[in-house]
């Protein structure tokens, strides 16, 4: 009973506490203990998040009032189906990355595991919070961990891309605070549910200001999500980070996308009176353009990691198109696609790491190089990942794209969306088959250097890859769950009642 009451806070507290414990004796500076402890904690996190999902699915929204301050005054954590699903996704992803990192990536610098833990705490917090300022705080937590993780291991390239990433995100944080200031000034609250209530009571002159605040917020989230004019930081950053870090970063863009889903359907959504659908006219063209930019990037990528980074861009475009359609069906398809694309792009980053290690000097660049040590194993893994990410049957990408196309079937935007999405798949198909041919078949000489990938490293990749066929096998229950989650998101009335109603009594 006690534990279920605090269940919503556990996905944040567990990694936070684990991260602190890792810095203290007897765990400090002891790599084997670090590895064992982090893996154990991550396994517990996966279990807890699965439990949270089960509880939110069967018993409805779970609320957690910090310090027992009732909304709209205190900070609340909101665990509904979407956030529980995403928190579970984060834990799974973290497990995969950590398994991979035990293969030696964690020895390149200090404090790898604590940083991963803090990053996970920030991401989970951003998914669970019900307060906009708290969202900012968790953004900063995940960002400062990501800054250190990005340059973890050192090297010129990482410093160079780290500089851009850090400066851009600092400016983004300032803009976030400006937006919060404007919104607090007009709405008088930062509790997301309470803000949604207050949007109906605005006077004429406050309306324009609130609009500006809402759009500024969209700008900040778009920067995190890497929407078109703000996406230039992404490919270089992701390509220069070490493989497990890049894999964990696969969920960072999704934090921005989730924030857009959440804030711009609840506060500035279809039911927000004069502020209704504030983001939609902006999201629609820019999401399609992001898709197009990703397409060009994929075709022009000179290395596997840049290719994977540009595939992330394509998935960002796809997911924001789903948000721009503004219907529960599209949102449900988007959520399914979000789960799939996060896991598979992470798997691709990890694969690129292994392939780069085994090829020696050319690394993961798409040029003729030495043959791989484990060509069959890695080839199969690459093939599965490529099929899934392109969206070919029988993998999850296919199902996700079909759901998305179906959701857009009746809308007027179909004429724009279908060709762009399908052309994106075609571009990925061309680029990935070219990359695979070069990496696995265009080889010269013998390979007697480098090491074969260890069992734990491979199990990290396998864990992420196996999710794709599993998402197809259990496609029925998962799509049902995402549809329910999307309906929750659009049923603002019910959300508001359950959050604010509980505070009234």
């Amino acid at each position, binding site marked *: 009973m006690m534990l279920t009451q605090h269940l919503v806070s556990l996905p944040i507290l567990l990694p936070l506490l684990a991260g602190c414990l890792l810095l203290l004796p007897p765990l400090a500076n002891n790599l084997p203990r670090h590895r064992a402890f982090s893996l154990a904690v991550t396994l517990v996190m996966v279990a807890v998040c699965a439990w949270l999902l089960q509880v939110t699915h069967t018993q409805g929204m779970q609320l957690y009032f910090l310090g027992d301050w009732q909304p709209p005054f205190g900070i609340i954590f909101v665990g509904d189906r979407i956030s529980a699903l995403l928190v579970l996704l984060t834990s799974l992803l973290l497990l995969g990355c950590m398994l991979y990192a035990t293969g030696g990536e964690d020895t390149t610098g200090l404090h790898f595991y604590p940083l991963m833990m803090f990053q996970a705490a920030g991401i989970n917090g951003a998914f669970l919070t019900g307060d906009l300022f708290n969202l900012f705080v968790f953004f900063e937590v995940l960002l400062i961990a990501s800054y250190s993780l990005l340059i973890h291991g050192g090297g010129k390239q990482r410093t160079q891309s780290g*500089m851009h990433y850090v400066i851009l995100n600092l*400016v983004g944080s300032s803009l976030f605070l400006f937006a*919060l*200031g404007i919104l607090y000034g007009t709405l008088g609250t930062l509790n997301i549910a309470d803000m949604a209530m207050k949007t109906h009571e605005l006077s004429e002159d406050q309306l324009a200001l609130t609009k500006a605040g809402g759009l500024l917020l969209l700008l900040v989230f778009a920067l995190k999500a890497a929407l078109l004019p703000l996406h230039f930081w992404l490919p270089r950053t992701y390509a220069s980070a070490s493989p497990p870090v890049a894999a964990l970063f696969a969920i960072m863009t999704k934090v921005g996308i989730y924030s857009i889903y959440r804030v711009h359907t609840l506060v500035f959504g279809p039911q927000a009176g004069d502020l209704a659908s504030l983001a939609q006219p902006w999201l629609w063209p820019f999401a399609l353009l992001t898709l197009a930019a990703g397409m060009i990037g994929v075709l022009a990528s000179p290395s596997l990691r840049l290719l994977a980074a540009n595939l992330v861009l394509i998935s960002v475009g796809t997911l924001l198109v789903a948000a721009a359609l503004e219907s529960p069906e599209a949102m449900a398809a988007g959520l399914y696609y979000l789960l799939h694309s996060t896991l598979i792009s992470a798997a691709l980053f990890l694969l690129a790491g292994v392939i780069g290690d085994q090829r020696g000097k050319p690394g993961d660049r798409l040029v003729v190089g030495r043959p791989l040590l484990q060509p069959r194993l890695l080839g199969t893994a690459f093939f599965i990942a490529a099929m899934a990410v392109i969206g070919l049957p029988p993998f999850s990408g296919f199902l996700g794209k079909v759901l998305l196309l179906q959701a857009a079937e009746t809308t007027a935007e179909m004429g724009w969306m279908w060709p762009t999405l399908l052309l994106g798949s075609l571009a990925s198909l061309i680029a990935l088959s070219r990359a695979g041919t070069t990496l696995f078949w265009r080889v010269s000489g013998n390979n007697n250097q480098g090491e074969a990938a260890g069992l734990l490293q491979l199990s990290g990749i396998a864990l992420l890859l196996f999710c794709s066929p599993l998402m197809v096998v259990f496609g029925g229950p998962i799509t049902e769950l995402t549809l329910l989650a999307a309906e929750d998101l659009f049923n603002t009335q019910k959300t508001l009642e359950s959050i604010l109603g509980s505070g009234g009594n």
Partner: protein
Amino acid sequence: MEALYAFCVGLLTACGVFLTLRGRSFPVVVGITLLSYAVNLFLFSSGRLKMDGAAVLGASESYADPLPQALVLTAIVIGFAMTAFVLILAMRSRADLGNDHVDGRLPPSPKDQK
């Protein structure tokens, strides 16, 4: 008071934006600092500007909104940590890459282009 306050916030923001758009890392860091000053003042004003208002009930005739003050406090702490980080990163980048340009390489000077 409002006009002066707004002018100060605007001036700080303008300077911050100008400096963050510079090419070398030091002006950029200073620009980010100015931006965070501006945003802290701005956040403070979102609870309305008021003279002689304490944030504690009963301590004065009229009271001020305590929430923006708490927000500013949080924002200051976070901004301070972030500035420290970006400073260290800028120094590291100066050491690693051999120059203080944010791109890690100096733009070609007009002499080279001739």
